[in-house]
């Protein structure tokens, strides 16, 4: 059994969904997503932690360009894959209270996107990676633009052009790597194994960084993000923030730094600085937001900035932190957006100043919101804690000052998240919030699942860390070995 | 007198090339500067004939008949072009009563 089944199942499901009626499509989509989850669980169960790639599929695709349909699961991508298969059914579940027009297309697009995302995460061939990267982009564009809010057309086009621009530069970088490597393939490991001059690597690094930075997004490439998150339908926002931005993080870990270590070596100080600036900047902006969804969007920039900084610091701790934080952030941010989805659906507004006192009459909702908020602010024993801790640790190894600045994310995050919680849930109830009814049915189910995940991972993260540990250690080690060899004559390079 | 004929016969190739280049340039300039469709068309024909001259000259200087055969092709296709081109010009004239290409500005140039 290879990962191709994992990739193609959602695709086929999407095709089937087009021909179904709206009501049936909803259930069918959930069914397929759960089947997908089960499949991935099967893979997880059979996965042997280690560095070698498993469940490999390796088919010739475009031989004249040395392109293979080459995908598999290893320690680096298992977490994002699990994240995807886990979150998609949850996201589908969150939409059950919505009545979308042409729901069959909507769910088909979500499943299509899932397929694209899985291609991105499993691909071991540069071309395949790129195709998945773009394939995931098309459906989310249509999801956002068709079912989104007022300004959706302009905003989503901006989003599309931004990300497409980034990815085209990545395409050039990939083609360049293809032409430069001696065996003329797009194979990832081939990319790892050959050497280019520092200048060439620098260019490739910049191209990759542009693509990934836009996707994550890292300051100053983030301008598309808050608008898009705000305008997209909730499910779209969840797909974007929960899974899609992990493409950037994952890409950096797998496709950027190990492929062009020397390029990375030249530019990473600037990149980290950008990431850290982004953290502080986004936190401050988040602080000022009145729209709850927008606030979460900015908080996401801040969190992702920290992940980016940790990756760019490039040490085992940081990368491991990034790994687990990818999962955590996905869960948390989906939870938060779902909370806001519920509020805006029930009350028709997301303005913090108009809300308040919801907690009084709605205990289920209050508890869930609290848990998710705490998870996001990284309270110990929630999932956020372990991730952020490792990330900060990673950055700290690189530079104490930066770590200190980056650490403000926890403080600032705590402040604005709790302020948000307070202004929504506590204080006096007003006419509007009185109408709020407690969560029921699928909403309650989703919130329970998310809260459970937050707590379980927070208490016992070890199995997840264990999944990726060997691979990460090896990857980090290889790159650092290359860099050390490079710096050996100059000596006196701090070992990371 | 004998010398005179020798000179006539041995006009250097470059002079022919120069002549056709000049004719060709006149044609090009005509196309670019004139606004009357017929005159433009005639300028184009001048360009083609400059080419024909040069082809014939090369053909003679290289003792290779294919150049002259090419002239035939050029003439035949120029004739076809004349037929179609004049028909188009007549059509335009019937609709607009003008063959000044400046009148044709419904579509932007």
């Amino acid at each position, binding site marked *: 059994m290879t990962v191709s089944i994992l990739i193609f199942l959602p695709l086929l499901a999407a095709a089937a969904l087009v021909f179904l009626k709206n009501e049936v499509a909803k259930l069918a989509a959930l069914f397929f997503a759960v089947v997908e989850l089960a499949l991935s669980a099967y893979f997880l169960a059979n996965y042997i932690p280690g560095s070698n790639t498993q469940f490999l599929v390796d088919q010739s695709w475009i031989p004249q360009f040395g392109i293979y349909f080459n995908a598999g699961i290893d320690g680096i991508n298992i977490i994002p894959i699990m994240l995807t298969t886990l979150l998609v059914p949850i996201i589908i579940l969150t939409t059950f209270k919505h009545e979308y027009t042409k729901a069959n297309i909507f769910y088909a697009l979500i499943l299509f996107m899932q397929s694209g995302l899985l291609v991105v995460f499993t691909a071991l061939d540069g071309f395949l990676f790129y195709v998945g990267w773009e394939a995931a982009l098309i459906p989310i564009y249509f999801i956002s633009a068709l079912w989104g809010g007022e300004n959706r057309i302009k905003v989503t086009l901006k989003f599309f052009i931004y990300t497409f621009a980034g990815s085209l530069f990545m395409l050039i970088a990939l083609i360049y790597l293809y032409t430069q490597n001696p065996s003329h393939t797009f194979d990832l490991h081939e990319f790892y194994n050959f050497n280019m001059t520092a200048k060439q690597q620098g260019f490739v690094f910049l191209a990759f960084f542009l693509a990934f930075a836009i996707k994550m997004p890292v300051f100053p490439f983030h301008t598309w993000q808050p608008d898009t998150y705000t305008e997209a339908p909730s499910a779209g926002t969840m797909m974007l923030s929960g899974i899609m931005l992990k493409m950037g993080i994952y890409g950096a870990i797998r496709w950027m730094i190990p492929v062009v270590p020397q390029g990375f070596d030249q530019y990473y100080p600037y990149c980290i600085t950008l990431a850290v600036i982004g953290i502080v900047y986004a936190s401050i902006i988040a602080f000022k937001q009145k729209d709850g969804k927008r606030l979460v969007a900015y908080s996401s920039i801040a969190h992702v900035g920290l992940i980016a900084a940790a990756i760019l610091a490039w040490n085992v701790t940081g990368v491991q932190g990034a790994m687990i934080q990818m999962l955590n952030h996905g869960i948390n941010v989906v939870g938060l957006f779902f909370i806001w989805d519920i509020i805006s659906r029930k009350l028709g507004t997301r303005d913090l100043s108009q809300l308040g006192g919801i907690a009084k009459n709605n205990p289920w909702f209050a508890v869930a919101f609290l848990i998710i908020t705490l998870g996001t602010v990284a309270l110990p024993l929630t999932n956020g804690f372990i991730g952020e801790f490792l990330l900060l640790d990673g950055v700290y190894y690189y530079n104490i000052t930066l770590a200190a600045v980056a650490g403000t994310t926890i403080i600032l995050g705590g402040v604005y998240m709790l302020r948000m919680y307070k202004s929504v849930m506590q204080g006096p109830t007003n006419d509007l919030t009185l109408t709020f009814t407690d969560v029921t049915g699928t909403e309650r189910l989703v919130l329970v699942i998310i809260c459970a995940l937050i707590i379980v991972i927070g208490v016992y993260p070890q199995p997840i860390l264990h999944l990726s540990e060997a691979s990460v250690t090896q990857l980090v080690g290889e790159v650092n070995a290359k860099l050390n060899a490079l710096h050996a004559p100059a000596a006196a390079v701090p070992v990371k | 007198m004998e010398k005179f*004929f020798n000179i*006539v*016969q041995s006009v250097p190739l470059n002079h022919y090339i120069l002549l056709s280049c000049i004719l060709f340039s006149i044609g090009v300039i005509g196309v670019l500067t004139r606004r009357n469709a017929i005159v433009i068309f005639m300028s184009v024909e001048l360009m083609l004939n400059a080419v024909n001259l040069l082809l014939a000259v090369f053909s003679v200087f290289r003792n290779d008949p294919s150049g002259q055969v090419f002239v*035939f092709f050029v*003439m*035949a296709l120029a*004739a*076809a072009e*004349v*037929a179609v081109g*004049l*028909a188009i010009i*007549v059509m335009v*004239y019937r609709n607009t009563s003008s063959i000044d290409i400046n009148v044709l500005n419904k579509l932007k140039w």
Partner: protein
Amino acid sequence: MEVKSSAIDYLPIIIQMLVAVGFAVGTMFATHALGPKRKTADKLTPFESGIEVVGNARTPFSIKYFLVAILFVLFDVEVIFMYPWAVNFREMGFTGLIEMFIFMATLLAGFIYILKKKALDWD
């Protein structure tokens, strides 16, 4: 054509042209000098069978003439292609015959087409 004409062979033609031009120009000048010149407005109006001149003579004329001209251009060029063939006909033998028959068949196909299209009917 084995015989090659050189530029010299055309010299007499140039002489003849010069003579012709000389004759035409000379005669023109002679009549100009010899004839009387008594111009009146009526004499200089175009002849229109004695009645008042109506409009300009430079008016569009029947498209038929134009069509004939276009067809001439096309057919004449096709005919030109036959000259080298006709001159070398004996050397080319049977293949040449067939090839030219194909050429002429195409020509005829076009010819019959324009006939059927009534491009050459004058009414």
